[in-house]
């Protein structure tokens, strides 16, 4: 069953990459993060094999809210991955 926090993140990511939408997505991801991944001793990190993409190759999950809020390219990446919409 999809969790409510993740649904809020999807909704925020469906919006255009404006500062308001990016802040909303960052807050939604922080809420989702509180109830999900990364319990215990692990240090989960979102990674990709892109080159010259405008976003980092590796973002620890606890830093994703900051990256979502400041980087429109990263917002667009998560829009494609999570909201399954073209950026």
């Amino acid at each position, binding site marked *: 069953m999809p969790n409510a926090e993740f649904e809020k993140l999807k909704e925020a990511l469906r919006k255009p990459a404006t500062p308001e939408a990016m802040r909303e997505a960052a807050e939604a991801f922080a809420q*989702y993060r509180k109830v999900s991944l990364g319990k215990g001793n692990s240090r989960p990190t979102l990674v990709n*094999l892109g*080159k010259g993409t405008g976003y980092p190759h590796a973002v620890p999950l606890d830093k994703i809210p900051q990256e979502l809020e400041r980087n429109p390219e990263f917002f667009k990446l998560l829009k494609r991955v999570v909201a399954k919409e073209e950026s």
Partner: protein
Amino acid sequence: MPTTVLMSDFDLPTRSASGFILRYIAPRVEPVQLFSFLVRRLPFQLCAPQSDIIIGVGHGNESSFTGQNEAEILEVGKYNPREIRGKVIKLLSCQCGVALCPDLIKNGALSVAGYVDDYIWVMDSDLASTPWADKEFAGKSLMPVVDGINALLDGKTAGEAFDIELEGYTRNAAAEEDELIKCCLEFNRENAVLLGDPEGRVRARLKITLPIPPPRILIPIFQG
């Protein structure tokens, strides 16, 4: 015929992906493997023409596939077709399926598998020196890739190997409880492409699984 395996290893994503290839693929292929600082254009030029299969892990974009520290390995219009002619190629990299993979096919590659958008996954960065042990996070995305490559090395066709990779994503996504990891698995599955001849295949290699993993990967203290 040897296998050309390119395993970049200079940041978290390349270390994670190459770690799985090192653990599960490298033991069963001939010792002509390019790891870490050897993943550069010149060693590739020397190895690739003699191989029937090229397996590459590295950063990429629509028109290029890179090796260690993003050294160019294959770029549209900037390689000798002899390096890829008649070969089965698997590129674990971002976006190469858009322009590079079609270019490889146009220049004579038998079949090429890649991705038309980013290849993205969650890894445990605390396991960077033993990436193959990351079953909880990275394994869910990277083991389907390993299973597909192993199918190729078992003598299965490129099409069969591609289906095995896709089925792995589907199976792992269905069992996954975390929404973000599930989205990454579905994203990788949707963006995987196979171009060229789906009946392409290579000489079957012996099935070898090492009972113990490789030694820990040394990580320079100035790297992530």
